[in-house]
């Protein structure tokens, strides 16, 4: 059940240039939050920005949750200016998170850019469910923006890196590394990142017969399934089923259910 709570900020520190990590005390939310779910954070007391901002749970701790976020625009700039001790209104947990099938033997997490945000919580859960840490592929523009590598390594994950400029790891994108890891029908891929990277990942999964869950983003208003603002096109052709809501039908979807061709990449940032 989602809550709307005023929570105390415990920490809000830089994680990389223009990337920060905020930890908020939220025992009820922490009790229920699942990897891949998210919360809507209110960024201002006044009405500009009016809408809350969706943020995935990076970690779910005993009494707290952590968010890892990129400073993009007005809302995240305001988040970045908040200080420990201040309160923030948190609405969550929301959405459908990742599902973990422990009968599958290989689990690979693939992240592009800030898409890494929900994966530490997922790696935790996979490790617990499968009694083995998953493999993780992290892609970023350049070394400075590679996030969470240490976090995954400390969980015992095998971590593969890729950067656009080759400043660390493989030169190229995360999906190339994934291909090299040779997923097969007994592999579960979990991906989060820019749409082109997720489409490429979905194609690799389809070709190799691996299962693939993707966590999508969309502009959201309610987070509750009410406004129908956050939809993406699914493969279902029926008028009533065509548009699926990222906030409640997702944000995690089976990659096979998304109509990757319908997606209009011209609108992605």
């Amino acid at each position, binding site marked *: 059940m989602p809550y*709307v709570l005023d929570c105390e900020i415990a920490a809000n520190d830089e994680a990389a240039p223009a990337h920060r990590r905020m930890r908020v005390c939220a025992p009820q939310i922490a009790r229920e939050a699942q990897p891949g779910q998210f919360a809507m954070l209110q960024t201002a007391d006044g009405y500009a920005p*009016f809408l809350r901002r969706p943020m995935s749970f990076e970690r779910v701790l005993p009494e707290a949750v952590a968010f890892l976020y990129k400073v993009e625009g007005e809302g995240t700039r305001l988040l970045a200016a908040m200080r420990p001790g201040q309160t923030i209104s948190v609405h969550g947990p929301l959405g459908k998170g990742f599902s973990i099938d422990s009968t599958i033997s290989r689990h690979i997490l693939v992240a592009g850019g800030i898409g890494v945000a929900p994966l530490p919580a997922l790696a935790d859960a996979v490790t617990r469910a499968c009694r083995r840490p998953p493999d993780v592929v992290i892609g970023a523009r350049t070394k400075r923006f590679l996030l969470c590598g240490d976090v995954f390594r400390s969980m015992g994950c095998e971590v593969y890196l890729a950067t656009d400029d080759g400043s660390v790891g493989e030169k190229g994108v995360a999906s190339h590394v994934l291909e090299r890891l040779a997923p097969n029908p007994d592999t579960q891929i979990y991906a989060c990142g820019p749409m082109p990277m997720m489409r490429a990942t979905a194609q690799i999964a389809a070709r190799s017969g691996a299962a693939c869950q993707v966590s999508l983003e969309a502009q959201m208003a309610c987070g509750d399934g*009410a406004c129908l603002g*956050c939809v*993406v096109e699914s493969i279902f052709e029926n*008028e009533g089923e065509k548009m699926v809501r990222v906030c409640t039908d997702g944000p995690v979807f089976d990659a096979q259910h998304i109509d990757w061709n319908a997606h209009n990449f011209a609108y992605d940032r």
Partner: protein
Amino acid sequence: MKPNLEVRIGALRMKNPVTVASGTFGYGQEYARYFDIAALGAVTIKSITLKPRAGNAPPRLVETPAGILNAIGLQNVGLDAYLAEKAPFLRKHGATIIANIYGSQPDEYCELARRLEEAHAADAIEANLSCPNVHDAATARGPALVAQIPERVAEYSRALRAATKLPLLVKLTPNVADIREPALAAQEAGADGVSLINTLMGMAIDPETRRPRLANVIGGLSGPAIRPVALKMVWDASRVLQIPVIGMGGICTAPDAIQFLLAGANAVAVGSMSFRQPDAALQIVRGLADYLEHHQIPDVNDLVGAIAT
């Protein structure tokens, strides 16, 4: 003494003057997780059409200063699914239902109204004649929405009036030179009330990609940004109408709702604010009761039109 909160919109009784705005509260289910939706004066549902609709391509939303532009394009489950799945949920929870409907012809509105009435799936009908986001609304030169043309408002309202005995609300657009004209047209055609306002047409562009922010190019503006515009239209319309007005547009708090009542609205609807604060409408019911008690006003109807000028 507890003040009276009950209001009537034609034959529709609302236990308090607070409903939610169509399209911002789903079919009630989404918000029943947060509070007892029967505590509202009514639940106004997302516009339904005869057949399910997929709506517009995404992106459908963009935020603007103190507002939201949306171009959902009336995605909805369609009448059959509403009757089978949504109405029973609302009835089970004891909600008073204002069923918002949309059609591309008077006939479609009438069929929707008739079938809703037959199925006892609505306590009132709200005819959305003012959605800026559907392509039936052609964009040639000249006004494009039914609600922009008083004669067409009269035509649609008359047809609906003949088709149903349910209380009939007509929802109008602010994109007119004078809101009194379509409002009077609705009244003369037999409507029991008018709902003011739907969203204001608007647009936003991404300077980097040069693309419109919405795939539909234009959208409807809602939220606190439009509150002064909505309030003025409620004031204008209510002074010439004999029938009630349901006021909406940027209502976020009880003081906002009270402004609309003072301007002449008999009830109010909370729209975009539910996105920010899921129980906003309930908080407004409570704030309104507190205000009445604090000012020792025995009946909320005493506030209606009670602006001091």
